[in-house]
């Protein structure tokens, strides 16, 4: 047993003077002052897959914005070269109307990203408001609001979209409306679940005892604390929207010629799969990369926000 009674006899007597407590040492806070979001960013930045996803997205966004500006051709211009394979002049080759595929892919990027973001933003506004009001008020209001949401999702999604697109003219705006018509329900359900769990937490009760009204609670407590779930849902809604848009365009319900959505390009490319495989390959590649990247970022965000993994 190493509990020996050894000690040094030769210690100077002054060292045994009573000096007392040092309160400042005793009550200090952690020197590092990190806010919640800084912690989240730290954890996110250590997730390799999420960073790769972010880089891919950054690349696609930048190219989507700038590549068409600096290109020698517009997306509908006839370059005179029909169905050529990728070459020094045309990095992604040309299609059967002699259009440069490189510039078309990046136009496609603009369209896909725009549609994805627009759908997500509408989701956000309607879904968050719907879910938080429903969750907070509870009772009959909650019941009615959620049953409306249930009815909307009970109808087959594709059917709704197709009917809407047939009724309205095909195009970009109608596409966005069709995608968000029932898309917000997912966000509403998730926000409602978060609100239900947050509203019984003691800090919300404390706010109520201070006299807070419904709007104050939603603004100050419910939404900020649900923000994590909201962000993750948004980030994962975007690839779903992009995929659906690509699919709809592929079956002919999407944006129309000469606008180039990746989906329409894939559809055209499919016809020439034997003779000009690059016409399908490039749009398909970018659809996959974009969806993968958004999913990686969304998953990374979710992991970074998970309170159980904190410290």
């Amino acid at each position, binding site marked *: 047993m190493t*509990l020996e009674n050894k000690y040094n006899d030769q210690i100077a007597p002054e060292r*045994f003077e009573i000096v007392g407590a040092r309160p400042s040492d005793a009550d200090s806070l952690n020197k590092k002052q990190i806010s919640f979001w800084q912690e989240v960013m730290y954890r996110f930045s250590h997730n390799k897959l999420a960073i790769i996803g972010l880089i891919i997205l950054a690349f696609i966004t930048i190219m989507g914005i700038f590549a068409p500006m600096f290109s020698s051709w517009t997306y509908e211009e006839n370059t005179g070269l029909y169905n050529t394979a990728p070459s020094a002049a045309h990095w992604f080759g040309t299609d059967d109307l002699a259009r440069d595929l490189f510039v078309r892919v990046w136009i496609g990027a603009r369209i896909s990203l725009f549609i994805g973001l627009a759908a997500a933003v509408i989701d956000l506004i309607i879904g968050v408001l719907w879910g938080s009001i429903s969750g907070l008020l509870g009772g009959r209001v909650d019941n009615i609001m959620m049953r409306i949401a249930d009815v909307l999702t009970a109808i087959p999604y594709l059917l709704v979209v197709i009917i809407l697109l047939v009724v309205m003219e095909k195009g970009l705006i109608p596409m966005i409306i069709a995608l968000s018509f029932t898309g917000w329900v997912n966000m509403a359900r998730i926000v409602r679940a978060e609100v239900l769990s947050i509203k019984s937490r003691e800090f919300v009760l404390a706010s109520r005892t201070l006299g807070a009204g419904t709007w104050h609670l939603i603004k100050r407590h419910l939404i900020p604390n649900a923000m994590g779930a909201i962000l993750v849902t948004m980030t994962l809604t975007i690839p779903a929207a992009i995929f659906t848009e690509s699919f709809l365009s592929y079956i002919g319900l999407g944006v129309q010629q000469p606008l180039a959505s990746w989906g329409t390009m894939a559809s055209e490319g499919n016809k020439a799969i034997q003779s000009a495989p690059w016409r399908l390959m490039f749009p398909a590649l970018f659809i996959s990369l974009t969806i993968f990247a958004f999913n990686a970022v969304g998953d990374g965000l979710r992991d970074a926000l998970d309170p159980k993994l904190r410290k």
Partner: protein
Amino acid sequence: MKKKILEVNDLHIHFKTYAGIVQAVRGVNFELYEGETLAIVGESGSGKSVTSNALMKLIPEPPGIYAKGEIKFNGRDLIPLSEKEMLSIRGNEVAMIFQDPMTALNPTMRIGKQIMEVLLKHKKVASKGAAKTRSIELLNQVGIPFPEKRFASYPHELSGGMRQRVVIAIALAADPKLLIADEPTTALDVTIQAQILELMKDIQKSSNTSIIFITHDLGVVANVADRVAVMYAGQIVEYGTVEDIFYNPKHPYTWGLLGSMPDLNNSTDELLRAIPGSPPNLINPPTGCAFAPRNELALAIDYEEEPPMFQVSDTHFAKTWLLHPNAPKIPLPEAVARRIESAKGGTANA
């Protein structure tokens, strides 16, 4: 001569966190003999739970690191053992009871089956039939009424106190020599707590099991412990029999703990003798005595050099410079002295 079951020597346990390396346990020494109960008392951040988890090598590595020291169970150091070797010891020779009975039991498995699992895994019985019989015996031993019926219950069908009894039954199933109880009654009501403590003492008497009891409640310590180790900031600061600690405490932190509790025999309007401040950050542990910044009786040397363990008697040790022969003779703080006087002199209340 009582047999020594457990010997912990100079145990150091660190954790790698993104803020730095946390030295959760900084040189802990203690022993445990057959049939006795050692209470490890401490507050949050003292290292008591890390120590108890370390005894069964339940600290995840990474981020945990067994930086130094030995944990000798029946003479055999556990630290170098592989996970496979530990599997034959855990649940078998050493068993653990945790704080929260809700999460310690598998909610999807009937309680009888959970006990049988242990018996079969460690080959304590010859057949499933024998396992069932023994399980029902154990349920009876821990005081569960109608054990044959309760054998088929799910955890959620039982109350908190009942669940903790089942947890104890599982822990006892393989006849362990050492039982580690990590705050087993903290989440329970005071009357249920009393029943569980009585149960544990009965079991100890009948099976001669050694118990390490981790808690922050000094009342519980006085009830169950033979010997006590008081932990602060990752170290044991005072160590002795239960009488040593309660009637002759020598470390200012122990005085502080005793002074923090209301003295029900001496009703005054005085404020409690609370210890100001909070425990130190163990990422950069202080060089001297860790308790000094909160100690109004701290000596100059307390801020410079860590005190060694001084011996007060055969059984009693304290890690404070106040026990050095050159240190000033400081009497017990009044509130603590008064409490000890009335404790030793008077008898029970109510």
